[in-house]
């Protein structure tokens, strides 16, 4: 309104998380891992399916966490990358008869390229503007997928049905269980790689940009390169998650990848704790199970119950599961000292 330019001392949108606080201790990690490996043996196939989805959404939340928690860039467009990954896998499997496992790296690479290219113009945007740009991407994606031009490959509005793989090597294992362990191995691989990435030189560059972009560039960090790289990596992991999701659900259609998915993934990140990678699994559990709890409480008001539960969580632990873990760790530390 006034001609005077405002001078703003802007606090960074994402708070600084020290990199050691981004992971779990080795002991805790092994306990969680053991639980994830053993649990499926004792439960029904349907629960195994849910656990598979838990890992898949966990991967997608992790990817967003690298982007936002790592490099400080905000995205409401993760559903677009997820969709591209899912369709890449589905199309390769159904039209090119490619083995499902081979389609995943391709989905990852395609999405990496897509994310990297998207990151280029998005470089000039930050905060709310970046949110709008990614939001635009998420709203545009379902419309692009059903475009008549691509219909031959995408199945248009009807979507594509995907065949679920059997366990290989004649293993006596249900399809669901095989897919679960397959997903688990990939998830662990990506999780370890992500931690190493954040601990590496690139990870330090991401975090320097997150905490203070100008200072980072003054220190000689190539801000443009690392910001677009963060977009690429995040999109690539999301793409692999999307591909796995397509195989687990056995179906892709534009309606599965709306803005609601992007919002869910965002909520998963907040609930899990921004910048805390293990929290991704907690966040993923929140977005899968809390809607089920909400509808159990009231069908007509499931949206409202979900909202109230979400408010409860952010009131109690505004920093998400990370906060819980920190407090627990402190308590545990005290107890051991005594």
């Amino acid at each position: 309104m006034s001609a005077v330019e405002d001078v703003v001392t802007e606090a960074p949108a994402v708070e600084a998380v020290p990199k050691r606080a981004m992971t779990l201790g080795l002991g805790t990690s092994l306990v969680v891992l053991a639980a994830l490996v053993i649990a499926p043996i004792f439960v029904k196939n349907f629960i195994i399916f849910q656990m598979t989805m838990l890992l898949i959404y966990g991967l997608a939340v992790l990817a967003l966490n690298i982007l936002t928690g790592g490099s400080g860039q905000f995205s409401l467009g993760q559903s677009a990358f997820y969709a591209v990954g899912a369709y890449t896998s589905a199309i390769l499997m159904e039209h090119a008869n490619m083995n499902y496992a081979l389609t995943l790296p391709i989905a990852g690479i395609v999405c990496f390229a897509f994310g990297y290219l998207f990151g280029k113009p998005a470089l000039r945007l930050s905060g709310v503007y970046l949110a709008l740009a990614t939001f635009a991407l998420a709203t545009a994606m379902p419309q692009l997928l059903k475009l008549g031009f691509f219909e031959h490959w995408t199945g248009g509005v009807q979507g594509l049905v995907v065949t679920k793989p059997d366990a290989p090597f004649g293993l006596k294992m249900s399809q669901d269980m095989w897919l679960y362990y397959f997903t688990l191995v990939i998830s662990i691989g990506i999780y370890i790689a992500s931690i190493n990435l954040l601990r590496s030189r690139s990870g330090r560059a991401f975090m320097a940009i997150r905490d203070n972009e100008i200072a980072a560039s003054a220190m000689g960090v190539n801000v443009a390169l690392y910001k677009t790289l963060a977009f690429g990596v995040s999109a690539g992991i999301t793409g692999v998650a999307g591909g796995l999701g397509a195989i687990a659900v056995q179906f892709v259609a534009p309606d599965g990848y709306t803005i609601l998915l992007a919002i869910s993934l965002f909520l998963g990140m907040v609930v899990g704790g921004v910048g805390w990678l293990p929290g991704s699994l907690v966040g993923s559990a929140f977005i899968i199970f809390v809607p089920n709890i909400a509808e159990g409480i009231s069908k007509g008001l499931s949206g409202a119950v979900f909202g109230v539960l979400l408010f409860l969580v952010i009131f109690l632990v505004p920093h998400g599961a990370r906060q819980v873990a920190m407090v627990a760790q402190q308590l545990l530390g005290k107890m051991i000292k005594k």
Partner: protein
Amino acid sequence: MLSRQATRSAAFSTALIATLAISGSAFAQKKYDTGASDTEIKIGNIMPYSGPASSYGLIGKTEEAYFKMINDQGGINGRKINFITYDDGYSPPKAVEQVRKLVESDEVLLVFNPLGTPSNSAIQKYLNSKKIPQLFVATGATKWNDAKDFPWTIGWQPSYQSEAQIYAKFLMKEKPDAKIAILYQNDDFGKDYLKGTKDGLGAKASQIVLEESYEVSEPTIDSHIVKIKAANPDVLLIYTTPKFGAQTIKKTAELNWKPLQIITNVSASVGSVMQPAGFENAQGVLSAAYAKDGADSQWDNDPGMKKWSAFLDKYMPGANKTDGNLVYGYGVAQTLVKVLQMCGDDLTRANVMKQAASLKDFEPDTLLPGVKINTSATDFAPISQLQMQRFKGEKWELFGPIISGDVNTN
């Protein structure tokens, strides 16, 4: 004397038959699959109670209330219906999760009336491979009538394509030289109508001067109407959901433009389309119907609709009777109850499917007089009859014969 004896012997033989019948059923093997027992039948369902399509959630609530009424009346052959319904938010991945929960955790006998083409496409392969009936799906896509490839999936309402073909045939007969414009929603629903129209017109498809699509996310479709008007067609086919149907009728009236308008059955509701659009604007609009309209005064004294109304008063007090979903939910729930009654004591999944495919001239309370449900081992399209109607005053006037418009996938 003679007459008394005759009466007595008649009474005797009746008693004999009754005894035989009872003992017959007592000896007959009671057969159950997972989800059915002597006391209850578990029915699973998914509905979009939340998310963009939450308006359809009312169908699930109506079905729940209907089964409660059936249970209050003693259930089906003494068994109570246990109706388990989950929210899928109109998202295919969530639909798969919820249906697997129904089948593997709640162990339902069958999945009834899941809503939406994307959700049903996502679960169809799973249910067919597990041999679980996907009964009376709530979508009008043509692909549900495919008994050969998907013997466990059956539709209910007339398919979108067959309805569109009826409009096409009507136009070829009544307005053979018409210039036709089509406004359709850019999704499976709109595209099915588009295809049906083109198939129906056949060689005359060249008379379509404009095919205009819109997205559900658009707040208004004014711009599309302006564009269509510029192409100057004399027939406008409105293949939209209710909100956009009402907008179209209102906008064309505001533009003082009066083409012949045909609106899809989905958006022909008196209470939620014609009235908001303005009765004065809706005069002369055409459509086709298979069910009665709760807001249409012509059915006030109809015995079927009186039953429907009494049901709502008792089991869904406060419900907005102009909402077409209440009529839909009642009709489809009644069809399921009919099938389960026909199953008798053989409540296996195979028998449910067999009975669902053996409906003969069944007339639920809410269907138009003359519209009957017929299925067979090769015909998985229960309702395939419609009647044309014209909007006049404050209600629809039916005209012409009842038209059958089966479209087979194969």
